[in-house]
C-alpha cells in the first residue's frame, strides 16, 4: 500500500501546477518539509543579517567614515544581532532537528505534526514582523525606522521616553511570537525523542544527534520562557504604563539584564549543542570509526545544559554585583569548560587512528574543532571577572562571541548542509565548489575575527559609530572589513552550489557516505512516510549491523 502511495505522490509532483505545489508546502505538516522550510527561511534571514553586517563593517573601514548615519548604524547592529540569533541561527538549528530527529530515531513524523507547522509559521511571521518595522516603525509618519536598542535591549533605552514610535514594539512582538514558536518546536522535539523511537532503540542506543537535540529542546523550554516573560513585562511598561523597568518609580534596569541573560546565556548552548550534534555525526563517519566515549558524550552534554542555566551573570560583571555573586558566576562559567573539553577530546579521539576522508563536511568539522577551542579559551579569559572588567563591552568580546557563533556553530552548520544535502535533495553537491567555499570562508573568518581581538585589547568599544584616527585601530578595522568580503563571496559560492546541485547535481542514492544511522537506510529524498516498515534496532549503528551481519555492533555494546 505504501508503494502505491509513493507512486501517486511522484506522479502528482510531476504534473502539479505551481499553485498546487505551493499550497502543499504552505499547508504541510510533514516534518521533512517543515524542516526544509525552516532552513530556507533561515538562509533568507542569514542573507539579511549578512548584509547588515557588511553595512556595519563598511562604516567602520576607516576613521571618520560616513557611509551611513549614526541612527542607521544603531539600527544595523541591532537588526544584525536580533536577526542572526533569532531568525537565522535558531531556525537553522530547528530545521535540521525537525528533519533529522524523526528519521534518525526511526519515526514516521514528529509527535505533534500540526504543532510543528504552527510553530514554524509563528517564527516565520515573527521574522516578517521584525522586518516590517523598516516600513512601519514610525507608524504613519512617513520615514522608515527599525529597532535601534541593541540586541539585548537594556532598560531604560526601551522605555517610551527613549524609544518613541513603534520600532521597539516590533522588536518585542517579533521575539515574543518567535519565542512561542520556539517553545512549540522544543516541546515537539522533546516529546518525539521520548515517545516515538522505533522498536529496540533504547535511550542508550539513540544517535548522539537525537540526544543533543533533546538537551537543546530542554534548554529552549527553560530559557525561552524567561525571555517571553520579560518581553511581556516590557509590553506592560510600554503600553499599560507599568513600572517594571522604570527606575524613577523604583523599578530596576538591572532586573531586565538578569531576565535577559537568564535567557541569553543558555541560548548560546541552544545553538552550540546542535552544532556539537552535527560534529558528533559527521566526524565518526568521515573518520570511519564509531564515536569515542558515547556515554561520556551524553553525560557531558547534559552537564553543559545543566551548568549553562547558572552562568548568566557573567554578562554582568561590570554592573557591580557582590563579590560572592561574582565569584559564583566566575566558578560556574569556568566549570562549563570541563564538559566542553571532554567533548573536544572525544572528537579528537574519534579522529585518532581513523581513515580520515577530507570531504567538505569533514573539513568544516575539523576547522570547527580548532576554532571552537580558541573561542572556548577566550571564553575562559572573559570568565575571570577582573579580566572582564577591563574588556567587557569591547571588540574583544565581539570577537569572542563571533568566534563561538561563526567559527564554532556556523561552521558545523555548513558541514551539516553538505553532509545531509544529498539526503534532503537527492542530489550530490559539487565537491570542488564546496572546497572553494570552505577555504574562502575560513580565510575570511580568520581575517575578520582573529584580528578583531586586537582593537578590543587596544580599547575599542563595541557599537561605536566611528573612531578617531591614530589610536592604532585603523589597520585592524581595515583588515576586518576585508575579511568580511571573503566571507560574503564564500557564502555566495555556497548558495550557488546548493542551487546548482539541486538542479543539475549527480543523483546521490540513498547512502552516499556509507553512513550508519537510520536516515541513510531510506530513499533520498525520503518518502512522506519515511520508512516502508519501521526498522528494528539492536545497536547504536543500525546500518553497520545491516551491512556487516558477520560482525554487528551489538556483539560489543
Amino acid at each position: 500500500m505504501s508503494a502505491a502511495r509513493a507512486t501517486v505522490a511522484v506522479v502528482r509532483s510531476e504534473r502539479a501546477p505551481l499553485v498546487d505545489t505551493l499550497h502543499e508546502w504552505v499547508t504541510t505538516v510533514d516534518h521533512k518539509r517543515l524542516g526544509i522550510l525552516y532552513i530556507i527561511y533561515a538562509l533568507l534571514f542569514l542573507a539579511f543579517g549578512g548584509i547588515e553586517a557588511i553595512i556595519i563593517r563598511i562604516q567602520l573601514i576607516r576613521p571618520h567614515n560616513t557611509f551611513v548615519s549614526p541612527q542607521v548604524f544603531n539600527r544595523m547592529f541591532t537588526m544584525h544581532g536580533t536577526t542572526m540569533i533569532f531568525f537565522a541561527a535558531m531556525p537553522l538549528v530547528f530545521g535540521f532537528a525537525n528533519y533529522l530527529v524523526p528519521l534518525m530515531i526511526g519515526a514516521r513524523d514528529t509527535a505533534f505534526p500540526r504543532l510543528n507547522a504552527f510553530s514554524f509559521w509563528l517564527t516565520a511571521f515573527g521574522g516578517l514582523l521584525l522586518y516590517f518595522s523598516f516600513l512601519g516603525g514610525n507608524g504613519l509618519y512617513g520615514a522608515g525606522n527599525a529597532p535601534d536598542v541593541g540586541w539585548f535591549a537594556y532598560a531604560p533605552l526601551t522605555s517610551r521616553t527613549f524609544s518613541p514610535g513603534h520600532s521597539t514594539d516590533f522588536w518585542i512582538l517579533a521575539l515574543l511570537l518567535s519565542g512561542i514558536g520556539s517553545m512549540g518546536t522544543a516541546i515537539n522535539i522533546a516529546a518525539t525523542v521520548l515517545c516515538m523511537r522505533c522498536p529496540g532503540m533504547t535511550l542508550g542506543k539513540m544517535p548522539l544527534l537525537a540526544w543533543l537535540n533533546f538537551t537543546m529542546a530542554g534548554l529552549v523550554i527553560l530559557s525561552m520562557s524567561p525571555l517571553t516573560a520579560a518581553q511581556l513585562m516590557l509590553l506592560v511598561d510600554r503600553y499599560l504604563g507599568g513600572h517594571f523597568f522604570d527606575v524613577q518609580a523604583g523599578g530596576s534596569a538591572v532586573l531586565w539584564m538578569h531576565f535577559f541573560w537568564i535567557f541569553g546565556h543558555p541560548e548560546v548552548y541552544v545553538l552550540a549543542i546542535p552544532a556539537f550534534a552535527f560534529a558528533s555525526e559527521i566526524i565518526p563517519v568521515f573518520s570511519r570509526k564509531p564515536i569515542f566515549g558515547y556515554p561520556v558524550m551524553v553525560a557531558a552534554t547534559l552537564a553543559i545544559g545543566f551548568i549553562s542555566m547558572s552562568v548568566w551573570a557573567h554578562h554582568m560583571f561590570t554592573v557591580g554585583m557582590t563579590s560572592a555573586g561574582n565569584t559564583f558566576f566566575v566558578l560556574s562559567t569556568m566549570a562549563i569548560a570541563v564538559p566542553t573539553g571532554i567533548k573536544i577530546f572525544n572528537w579528537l579521539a574519534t579522529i585518532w587512528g581513523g581513515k580520515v576522508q577530507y570531504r567538505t563536511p569533514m573539513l568544516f568539522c575539523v576547522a570547527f574543532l580548532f576554532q571552537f577551542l580558541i573561542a572556548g579559551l577566550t571564553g575562559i579569559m572573559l570568565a575571570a571577572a577582573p579580566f572582564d572588567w577591563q574588556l567587557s563591552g569591547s571588540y574583544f568580546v565581539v570577537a569572542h562571541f563571533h568566534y563561538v557563533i561563526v567559527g564554532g556553530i556556523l561552521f558545523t552548520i555548513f558541514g551539516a548542509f553538505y553532509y545531509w544535502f544529498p539526503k534532503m535533495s537527492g542530489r550530490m553537491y559539487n565537491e570542488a565548489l564546496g572546497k572553494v567555499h570552505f577555504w574562502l570562508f575560513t580565510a575570511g573568518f580568520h581575517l575578520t575575527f582573529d584580528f578583531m581581538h586586537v582593537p578590543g585589547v587596544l580599547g575599542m568599544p563595541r557599537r561605536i559609530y566611528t573612531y578617531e584616527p591614530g589610536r592604532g585601530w585603523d589597520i585592524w578595522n581595515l583588515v576586518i572589513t576585508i575579511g568580511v568580503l571573503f566571507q560574503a563571496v564564500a557564502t555566495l559560492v555556497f548558495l550557488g552550489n546548493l542551487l546548482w546541485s539541486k538542479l543539475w547535481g549527480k543523483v546521490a542514492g540513498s547512502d552516499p557516505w556509507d553512513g550508519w544511522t537510520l536516515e541513510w537506510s531510506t530513499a533520498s529524498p525520503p518518502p512522506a512516510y519515511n520508512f516502508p516498515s519501521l526498522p528494528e534496532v539492536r545497536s547504536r549503528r543500525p546500518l553497520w549491523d545491516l551491512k556487516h551481519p558477520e560482525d554487528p555492533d551489538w556483539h560489543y555494546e
Partner: protein
Amino acid sequence: MYFLIAAEAAIFTIFVVAYIFYVGKSATGPQPAAVLHAPLFLTACLLSSSLTTHLAVRGLRSRNVRRFTWWWCGTVILGGIFVAGTAREWRHLVYQDGLTIQTNLFGTTYYSLVGLHAFHVIAGLLALAVVLVFAIRGDVRQEHSARTEVLSMYWHFVDAVWVVIFTVVYLIGR
C-alpha cells in the same frame, strides 16, 4: 504537556521573582498591607476544583460518563466563581482603593502576576467548557479519558501556581 507545564512554570517563576524583588519598593501608596485581603473562599473554590477534575477523569476511566459530566461541570462552576471573584476584587481595588497598573510598582507587579494567572485560568476554563459541551452532547466516551487527563493536568498546574501566588502575594508580600 509536562514540557508545556515546565515552560509555563518558568514564565511564572520570572513574574514571581519580579514580584518578590519589588515588594516594598513602591515609591508611593497604596501599599499591599492596606488594600489586600486574602481571598480564602476563592482559593478554596480553585483548589477544590482540582479535586473535582480528578474525580471526573476517574469517573470517565471507569466508563461512568454521567459522573464525569457532573464533576466536570462542577469544575467549570468552581473555576467560574474564582474568575468572577478575582474580577470583583480588582474592581474594588481599582475604584475603592485607586490602585491601577500605573499607580506604583505594587500595582504593576500585582496586576501582571495575578492577571497572568487569571489569564491561564480563563484559558483553562474555555478548554474545560468546550469539553463540557461535548460531554453534554454525549460525545465524550471512555477512550477520551487520556485526553481529558491531559487537560486536568493543566488545571492542576494552574491551581498549583495559585498556591505559590497566594503564598507570595497574600501571605509573604503583605
